[in-house]
């Protein structure tokens, strides 16, 4: 029986309201105690002096590309990148080949993850077969096999009737329906956010309205069905306002934002660098400000990366030909610190919530806390270590990050899953 004592750090556990100097003792994979000067003879010891010790961070929106697209990422490499980014739990979207629309694929992912990583990999199942938007996938069987939510992510369900049926079924299996909100007719052919910048650059626009009309539709369907509805990577001023309004009306809605949507705007696209190409597209200042205000006010429940690896050859093309998406696991904590905490917009405790109790609450996971009996997952990070992100050194198989070469202050120090050290910053 193994045990690990993480000592000397500042423990922040939003679920129990604790913030102060303390040690954390993990025994047999579970948190045994949090307190001052814990004694644990025979335990391994991790010195967390000068660092923050938090419940293991959860990224509820990643793409691991396995099965089927292993040249861009595998469960193993994606999980390594997660650990290097301070995440102990990641939820993988179903747009693999084949699509995760059956218990067979779900079981494969669960099994494969057990073989290749200690990081918790929780699959998200498709809403419809093949994510084609027509016929419901085997949602019940996938739930039994381990999915924690359903989503057709990048290929959103356009038929409102199908979406309604999916929400109704999700009620029976107590899972949220996650929607990548994009009206595909409005966004068709678009390369970037529609606005002065797209007009100047001669790139085709994706209007904010393509996101907003779907958020509006889904909120009405969530009210109609009573289902738990979660907005993926929310990016516009209007969508933040609509989610806030729906919450005030008691609709069961939650939402996430990505670090890139609160860190940078469409002004970055002037060089036609495809590492700034993703969906939803980088929006304008006012959207970034609305997203940050939503984080401050509590409208936004979670930060998720939408880690979307693409092989270099796919991104080394004319802008309009490149696939959408960027990697994000290893820069999420750094960006959250630099854009939210160091700027004084939120305290570090609120930041920890957005990575722990926030996503755990959306997915009803028994995680994201250091209460005794909880899984022994811990993220250790600091506020002041100066470092530069080098995409070529990334643990991910893909290097498509717009933050390559960016200077950060503060970042992950160590990642502990089930009481086992799975990653530690090089000294």
């Amino acid at each position, binding site marked *: 029986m193994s045990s690990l004592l993480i000592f000397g750090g500042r423990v922040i556990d939003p679920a129990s309201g604790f913030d102060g100097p303390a040690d954390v003792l993990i025994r047999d994979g579970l948190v045994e105690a949090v307190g001052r000067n814990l004694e644990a003879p025979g335990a391994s010891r991790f010195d967390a002096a000068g660092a923050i010790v938090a419940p293991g961070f959860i990224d509820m929106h990643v793409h691991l590309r396995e099965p089927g697209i292993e040249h861009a990422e595998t469960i193993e490499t994606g999980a390594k990148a997660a650990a290097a980014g301070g995440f102990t739990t990641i939820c993988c979207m179903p747009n693999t080949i084949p699509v995760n629309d059956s218990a067979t694929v779900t079981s494969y992912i669960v099994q494969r993850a057990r073989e290749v990583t200690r990081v918790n990999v929780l699959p998200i199942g498709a809403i419809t077969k093949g994510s084609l938007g027509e016929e419901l996938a085997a949602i019940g069987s996938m739930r039994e096999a381990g999915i924690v939510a359903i989503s057709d992510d990048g290929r959103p369900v356009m038929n409102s009737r199908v979406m309604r049926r999916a929400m109704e079924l999700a009620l029976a299996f107590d899972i949220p329906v996650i929607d990548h909100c994009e009206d595909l007719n409005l966004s068709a*052919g678009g390369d970037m956010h529609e606005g*002065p910048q797209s*007009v100047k650059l001669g*790139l085709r626009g994706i209007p904010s309205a393509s996101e907003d009309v779907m958020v509006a539709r889904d909120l009405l369907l969530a009210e109609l069905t009573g289902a738990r509805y979660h907005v993926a990577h929310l990016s516009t001023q209007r969508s933040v306002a609509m989610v806030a309004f729906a919450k005030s009306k008691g609709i069961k809605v939650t939402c996430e934002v990505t670090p890139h949507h609160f860190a940078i705007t469409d002004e970055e696209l002037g*060089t*036609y660098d495809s590492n700034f190409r993703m969906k939803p597209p980088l929006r304008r200042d006012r959207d970034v400000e609305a997203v940050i205000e939503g984080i401050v006010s509590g409208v936004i429940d979670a930060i998720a990366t939408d880690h979307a690896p693409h092989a270099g050859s796919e991104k080394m*093309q*004319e802008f309009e030909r490149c696939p959408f998406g960027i990697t994000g696991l290893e820069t999420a904590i750094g960006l959250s610190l630099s854009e939210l905490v160091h700027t004084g917009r939120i305290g570090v405790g609120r930041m920890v919530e957005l990575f722990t109790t926030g996503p755990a609450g959306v997915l009803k996971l028994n995680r994201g806390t250091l209460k005794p009996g909880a899984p022994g997952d811990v993220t250790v990070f600091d506020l002041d270590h100066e470092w530069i992100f080098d995409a070529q050194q990334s643990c991910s198989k893909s290097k498509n990050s717009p933050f390559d070469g960016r200077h950060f202050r503060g970042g992950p120090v160590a990642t502990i899953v089930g009481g086992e050290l799975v990653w530690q910053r090089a000294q």
Partner: protein
Amino acid sequence: MSAGLLDIESLDRSEIEQILERAKFFQPPPNDTYRRLESLKGKTVVNLFFEASTRTRVSFEIAARRLGAETLTIAAQGSSVSKGESLVDTLNTLAAMRPHAIVMRHGASGAPHFLARHLRIPIVNAGDGTHEHPTQALLDARTILDHRPSLTGLRVAIIGDIAHSRVARSNVHLLAKFGAEIVLCGPPSLLPRELADLAPGVQLAWNMTDAIQGADVIMMLRVQLERQHEAPMASGEYFRFYGLRLDHLQLAKPNVIVMHPGPINRGRELSSEVADSQKSVILNQVENGVAVRMAVLERILS
């Protein structure tokens, strides 16, 4: 990266003035043939055209040859591109043969900017997607200046499919730098509101009468059917509401000039009578294309 010419937006006024002044020197004397110059002797210019083009391609070729450079033109069809080679690999291959400049037309906005970040060789943008067509704006400015003393204060109406027009964008940037008043006109779906933010002095108009009123210059744009994914209005209505007819010219200044980047579609953007009228300077534009491109190539290569 060696300096090429990627767009008008990043040029400053004095650079543009120098090119236009030098182009004047390269204009042929009336009723005479060109002398062949030697200033680019020993240089090689590769023209790489990923989109169909007649006038721009030929114009660049003639410009390079009149300066004594060797030219080589590659059309995307029949090249390695059709065998699946990526744009970067194609350009790297060409660059390894050490030409002195690459003139490139490409259907993707920003393609030359993307390449300029990865190659050391100067790239001249001969039109990228719906972004810019810098030498077109330079030859348009040269043509206007052949008929007017200055660009400052001129009222220029640019009419047609603005949304998909790289010619319009380059012209807006250039004319705005010299303080012209620019009216962009077209059906709403081809005239995004954000165009008004492109540069100072830009106004938008949905009808031709407003746009042409008091104009010194009318630039008609080609309807870019190949770039439009849906019709902006019922077919057959376009010419009626956005085509230029002789009677429109009454609204403009008496000495108005009518321009078109070509190729013209008679009866679609402008009537045959307008195209052949004394006000039309369309063939002067073509002539100035060579002179301006000579000035650009000389500036980059010598």
